[in-house]
């Protein structure tokens, strides 16, 4: 009888512990998406494919093996490259974007940090380019997806979109350099992630990049 009670208690403890971990108060107080001010521009994109690490929770946690698209070189094993065509607001020309990302240094489950560092180069043919640098923390979609999975519905983050905050004490998303009509500008940016209905457990999904420059 003692053993049965102990096993039941341990199981409940595991569930409670997991819940407490995912509801880590730091994830509510320490993780605010970057605030944009002034004129905000938006670029939308959907990852058509990538080379390198898959942006899935189990991969970020190191629980699954690399996919066939992963890099084998140790120095870039946890890195990812994407080439995307970005669409602007109605009528504005599209841009060509390169996005590199890699597991963020300092990822720590007790501190609600599970994210990647990112670097962008976005080119508007005939106009100029932007180079951006930042990081993003996936804790909120991880928490919601895990809750969904615990209820037997699969890993499906529930919100329609997640404004991704930077990894605490990681790279603040900002404009590093511009050229052409963007030369000499400064600014910040924020990425938003909307779970794709086709592969909800992938943090690439449908994306928007909002930036304000001055």
């Amino acid at each position, binding site marked *: *009888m*003692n*053993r049965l*009670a*102990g*096993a*039941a*208690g*341990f199981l409940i*403890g595991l*569930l*409670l*512990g*997991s819940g*407490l*971990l995912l509801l880590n108060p730091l994830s509510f107080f320490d993780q605010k998406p970057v605030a944009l001010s002034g004129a905000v521009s938006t670029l939308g994109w959907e990852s058509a*494919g990538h*080379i390198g690490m898959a942006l899935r929770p189990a991969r*970020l*946690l*190191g629980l699954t093996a690399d996919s066939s*698209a992963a*890099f084998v*070189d140790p*120095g*870039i*094993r*946890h*890195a990812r*490259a994407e*080439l*995307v*065509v970005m669409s602007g607001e109605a009528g504005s*020309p*599209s841009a*060509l974007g*390169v996005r*590199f990302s*890699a*597991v963020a*240094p300092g*990822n720590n*489950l*007790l501190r609600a940090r*599970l994210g990647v*560092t990112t*670097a962008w*180069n976005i*080119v*508007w*043919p*005939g106009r*100029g*380019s932007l180079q951006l*640098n930042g990081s993003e923390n996936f804790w909120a979609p991880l928490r919601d997806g895990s809750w969904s999975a615990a209820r037997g519905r699969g890993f499906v983050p529930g919100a329609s979109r997640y404004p991704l905050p930077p990894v605490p004490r990681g*790279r603040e998303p900002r404009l*590093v*350099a511009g*050229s*052409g009509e963007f030369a000499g500008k400064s600014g910040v940016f924020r990425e938003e992630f909307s779970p794709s209905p086709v592969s909800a457990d992938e943090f690439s999904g449908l994306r928007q990049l909002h930036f304000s420059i001055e």
Partner: protein
Amino acid sequence: MAVTRAFYSCILLGILAVIVAAAFLPLPVNTRYRSIIGVVPDGGREEAFIIQWPQDRIGPGVTPPGLATGDGVALMSTAAGSASVELFRLRDVSGNVIGLASRSTYRRSAPGGGGVQASDWMLFIPSRGTLHLQQENAIDIAAAADAGGAVTAAADRVGFWSAGPQVSITTDADRGGGRVMGGAEEFAGFTGRYDEAWSVEGEPADGRSSGRITINTRTVLEGG
């Protein structure tokens, strides 16, 4: 009573097990190689990065709609102009793959009027950070699409190497040259100059060449 005590004790044990697992779960960490950096006599630091083609070209994987692609290169054409992107593995001077690199090449307006061909480099080293570079190109290095839509990198273009096996891509410093625009993490606050040079090995045949790109950076910490 003993049953109740066992039950609650094991709940605490379960919570503790989750905390211990979260603390000690080995999360992926980026492998770091020893940085190979020289000190410049008048201040600053010098570091060279190497790309060997064709073996370091990567992707671009699945071709997004609106792009034409070739081996490690993609081309976007719009009414306003075209832009090409090349993706590479990035090596240190010892040959270790330490990161990823992209070169975006496009035309933009020049400060004095007219247009100029320019390139942006992004050197992304997961264990160290990112360096962002910009340059005006001394020669045309834009990728081009043939009639069939296949995209070829400039180094594989027929006749590209007619002037010799080595070419300097960046313009001279007095014409803009290569500029280190900034960076992140270890490279945060870095500014400076750089040169990009290509050297081809052997005789290019059938529009396919092999060689190396050297990006030699000389940086200082802004305000340092």
